[in-house]
């Protein structure tokens, strides 16, 4: 049977994150959390493959224990089990430490034929986790796919992706990492008939650093080569901020003059 692991990040809802005007730090304390929207597109691709071929579908996430209830959305959509990597020692991880930790979790789960990720996270938006994961696991990757087809006999996966001015179809051998293009599909709703099952404590496993045999030098802040050395307020260039008044026709005349001068 096909084995799939979808990596899911829990992120604060962007519209609910504010900025502390004193410290310039992001204030996430009042923001509710959700599954990173691009990861929902990854879920949908995984569920379509499960519908078609039958599959064992695991969810892997990383973060504090309070992510547990949010991850159950994935179970109610059709995933079989959730594993949450949760340990204070994982905190402060940059891409290198994050991809290492996820890769150790995947190994501990026994690996999979396909590891599927969203294209990027809405709060970090670096898009570098899928390629980093593929490297730690030493397997192939196809990123930003719009759809994926698995050929179980030949043990390959094909993914179609958009490139500048067109598209390409790549094929790689299983096991492989896929990342899924943001908003390329319509993620399905939760199935409320299995809600009770999805909230059964047994469906979520929490693993710490010892459970995944993580090298303490490679996780969290010690495993992260990058440091934040400063924060600055974004300064954009001084703008005129001139408000134009009048009827739409008056405004159009003024705009037309502005445009002709600026072009």
């Amino acid at each position: 049977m096909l084995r799939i692991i979808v990596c899911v990040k829990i992120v604060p809802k962007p519209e609910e994150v504010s900025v502390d005007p004193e410290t310039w730090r992001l204030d996430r304390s009042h923001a509710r959390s959700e599954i990173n929207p691009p990861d929902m597109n990854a879920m949908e691709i995984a569920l379509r493959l499960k519908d078609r071929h039958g599959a064992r579908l695991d969810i892997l996430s990383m973060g504090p224990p309070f992510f547990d209830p949010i991850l159950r959305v994935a179970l109610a959509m059709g995933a079989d089990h959730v594993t949450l990597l949760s340990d204070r020692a994982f905190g402060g991880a940059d891409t290198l430490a994050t991809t290492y930790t996820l890769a150790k979790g995947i190994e501990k789960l026994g690996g999979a034929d396909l590891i599927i990720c969203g294209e990027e996270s809405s709060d970090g938006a670096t898009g570098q986790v899928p390629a980093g994961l593929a490297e730690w696991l030493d397997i192939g990757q196809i990123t930003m796919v719009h759809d994926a087809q698995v050929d179980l006999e030949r043990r390959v996966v094909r993914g179609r992706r958009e490139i500048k001015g067109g598209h390409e179809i790549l094929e790689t051998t299983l096991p492989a990492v896929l990342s899924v293009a943001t908003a390329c599909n319509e993620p399905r709703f939760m199935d409320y008939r299995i809600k009770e099952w999805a909230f059964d404590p047994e469906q979520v496993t929490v693993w710490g650093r010892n459970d995944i045999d993580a090298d303490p030098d490679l996780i969290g802040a010690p495993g992260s080569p990058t440091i934040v050395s400063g924060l600055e307020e974004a300064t954009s260039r001084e703008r005129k901020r001139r408000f134009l008044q009048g009827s739409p026709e008056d405004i159009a005349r003024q705009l037309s003059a502005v445009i002709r001068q600026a072009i």
Partner: protein
Amino acid sequence: MVQSLYGVAEETKTIWVYLERDGDTLEGVCLELLARGREMADTLGWSLEGLLLGQNISSLAHAALACGADRVYVVDHPRLADFTSEAATEAAFQAITGRRPSMFLVGVTPNGRDLAGRLAVRLRTGLNADCTDLRVNPETGVLVSEVSGFGGGILALIEMPQRRPQMATVRPGVFVPPEPDPERTGEIIFLDVDLKTTPFRTHVVERSVGEALDLTQAPVLIAGGRGVDGDFDTLRELAGLLDGEVGATRPPVDDGYVERARQIGQTGVVCRPKIAITCGVSGAFHFVVGIQDAETIIAINNDPEAPIFDYADYCIVGDVREIVPALIRELQDPRLATGNP
């Protein structure tokens, strides 16, 4: 602490730019990186060098020299004819560990991202992705990468004090492209790599490339947001009159009114047009970063409190569905087309 494969003590005082091929030319973002790399190299008194991977591509090395590189390393190998992340990663890995540059800069393209993500892990080094600016500390030679925090107007400065190379990726349009100087000369060095043990896992089954849309070159950008209610035809008409292109914020793209290649902002395209006209755009920061370097910004929104007005030169509080058609009629007025403006 785990170390990268070489550290500050072993680095050569060089800045490398990954030179990605785009058909018969180099990707525009690579040229932009050469321009900024040149400035940084001059600040430090270092050498700016390019890494070109492919087959029969050495003619592109001259383009990189003309755009500011002092030296270009060319890896010519049949396994690199079509980009695959495994072969490219291994070739770049061997070139980098052999020459030990202090920095390795990559443009954000689908293949650039694939390469950077794998390569950083293989080198056990950090990766500052999607930077909005790159600077150097002239005393220490440390790269300071600026990335914007999501949602707010916050910029984080990221450094990698110990591991090498210092890797960063930058989107197209962030830096100004250089003025090529065909008289400029430099060194072209062919490097051998051993890809015999690199597995053949991935291959291209089909590739179809037509005319590429390049919003970064448009002199006029008409950007529509939620407030245009999906009516992008009117915006296209306006763009047509001004020889411009239509862009959008994320919601209309997600809703399918506009193709994703036209999404402007942090997770889309960064433009620097002469004129940007935003229509029904509220002005979330992650959008604004995509137009903030426009010479002139005109904002139309029915909410006088919309943050977009803080970033605009000309602000119109009004209904997009009235203002844009009136502007189209005005621009079509034959008296203006034939007479002096």
